[in-house]
């Protein structure tokens, strides 16, 4: 019997988690662990942006605003007087608080941005991100300005999870990335998710089917922003702080590159892109200062050579082969 979609996806997610755990145990190399953790964090970030770009067809240039919002809300909360070394509730609550706060921010920014069409939408998201960036720099007493949130914060143990332990942090990031991916997978495979594809293809026609285009765009924008903030929270946990570069426009370019590298038509494309990006980053910066040059060359290769991201390319190969064998059977 064929298993239903959600169960198959969950089994797949569980399998990935087991593999990542095995990798941690078998390959005892902090360099490798670091790449995996960052890939997990950026997978959430890139997948959430791809809800907008790949599924909804809206290119947001300011997605890092929500990454930064999540990181700062979480970091500020963890540094606050309410949190002590034994506050077992603090981290789960902080994660929730950061996501709710970012959702509110995304709701407000999204409500304005989706009024604009196409490239103006993109510019507006970028403008809001730059406003947030300036605000973070200006609010020195709260945010530490260009220094960022310094001084660290405690990581109280909760549910037996001690994020000060490298192995716990690794598993925590892997687990959250997989859960976030499963949630997004469910969304894009739901009736709601198919509306997103329709709005990407032909929003005018969708309106004549009774669909309130702006409503669906807004909900998706809020969802994407909220999930991006989770990536920011994990980054904040990793670096024990939050830094204004995370709100700078260049930070929004990173998930864009990942989507370009990995592909936007295949659900897991951005994950592959995040992995390639982090490997390149780690390997290339270890050997040369010309990181941007190498990254640019690789992106050119995908854009001009394959004409799509690697994930889309592989998926195309697989489905072509399936079709060919289907024809041979018939």
């Amino acid at each position: 019997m064929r298993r239903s979609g959600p169960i198959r996806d969950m089994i797949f997610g569980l399998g990935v988690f087991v593999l990542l755990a095995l990798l941690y145990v078998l390959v005892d190399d902090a360099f490798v662990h670091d790449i995996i953790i960052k890939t997990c964090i950026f997978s959430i970030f890139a997948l959430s942006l791809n809800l907008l770009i790949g599924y909804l067809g809206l290119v947001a240039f300011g997605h890092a605003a929500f990454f930064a919002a999540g990181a700062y809300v979480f970091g500020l909360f963890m540094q606050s007087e309410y949190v002590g070394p034994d506050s077992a509730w603090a981290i789960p609550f902080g994660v929730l608080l950061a996501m709710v706060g970012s959702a509110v921010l995304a709701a407000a920014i999204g409500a304005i941005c989706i009024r604009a069409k196409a490239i103006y939408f993109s510019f507006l998201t970028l403008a809001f991100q730059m406003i947030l960036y300036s605000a973070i720099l200006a609010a020195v007493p709260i945010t530490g300005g260009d220094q960022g949130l310094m001084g660290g914060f405690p990581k109280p143990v909760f549910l037996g999870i001690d994020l000060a332990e490298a192995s716990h942090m690794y598993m925590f990031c892997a687990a959250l990335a997989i859960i976030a991916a499963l949630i997004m997978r469910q969304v894009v495979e739901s009736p709601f998710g198919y509306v997103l594809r329709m709005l990407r293809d032909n929003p005018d026609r969708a309106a004549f089917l009774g669909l309130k285009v702006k409503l669906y765009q807004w909900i998706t924008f809020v969802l994407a922003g909220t999930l991006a903030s989770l990536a920011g929270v994990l980054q904040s946990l990793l670096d024990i702080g939050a830094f204004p570069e995370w709100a700078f426009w260049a930070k929004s370019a990173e998930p864009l590159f990942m989507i370009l590298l990995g592909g936007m038509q295949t659900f897991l494309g951005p994950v592959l892109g995040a992995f390639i990006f982090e490997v390149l980053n780690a390997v290339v910066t270890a050997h040369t200062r010309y990181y941007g040059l190498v990254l640019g060359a690789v992106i050119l290769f995908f854009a001009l050579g394959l004409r799509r991201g690697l994930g889309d390319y592989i998926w195309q190969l697989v489905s072509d082969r399936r079709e060919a064998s289907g024809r041979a059977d018939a």
Partner: protein
Amino acid sequence: MLRLENVAKAFGGVIATDDVSLAFAPGSLSAIIGPNGAGKTTIFNLISGKLRPDSGRILFDGENIAGLDETEIVRRGIGRAFQVASIFPSLTVEESLMAAVQSHRRQTLRMAERFRHSNARQRAGEIIDMTGLGAVARDLSANLSHGDQKLLDIALALALEPRLLLLDEPTAGMGPEERWQMIERVRALWQAEHMTLVFIEHDMDIVFEIAQSIRVLCYGAVLAEGTAEEIRANPDVIEAYLGAPAEDAEVAP
């Protein structure tokens, strides 16, 4: 069922709709004809909410719908298909119709279900059978033939179970034989679904054969209305539009 009262619309200096008053009876099958640029599509755009009239009223079931947005008008039971087939290229025929059915049933905000397991599939299958798209149900809409794309556009509108269906040149861009197939299909759908149907058409033979009543538009205004016999005999129409004995007249699309 539908009544336009002194509706006007101008684009800058171009008067696309000039004081138009029209009425369509429930269950009727009517055609709108007129030369290129006469303002036929504009009338559909005004009725369906894509455009807002400068003045006048559009009454549907006695309520003024002029200026409401398109989603609201669709929900009240007015569906439409477009002169250039308007579809979703990256979805298959079946997926497109399932999504349209879900929209009609207001299930499209659901995030916890799987689209593939939706009970909309059954209804989508009925619409596919009704419109004869069975052979291409699993094909991407982008890969359909021109005729099938036009059919899919109509099928999308049917998924909303409209009481009034507006078809903008359902036979546009088709060869003579395909035209008749298409229009017979449209007539069969009209009979089966008990709806009010208004279509725009350039082929006079088709219009005279199919339509119960005909409206002739010229320069944005209603030049004539009546049955095929009346339109054929109308001297204004002959002079301004047909320009030749009606039997052989066909205006280039």
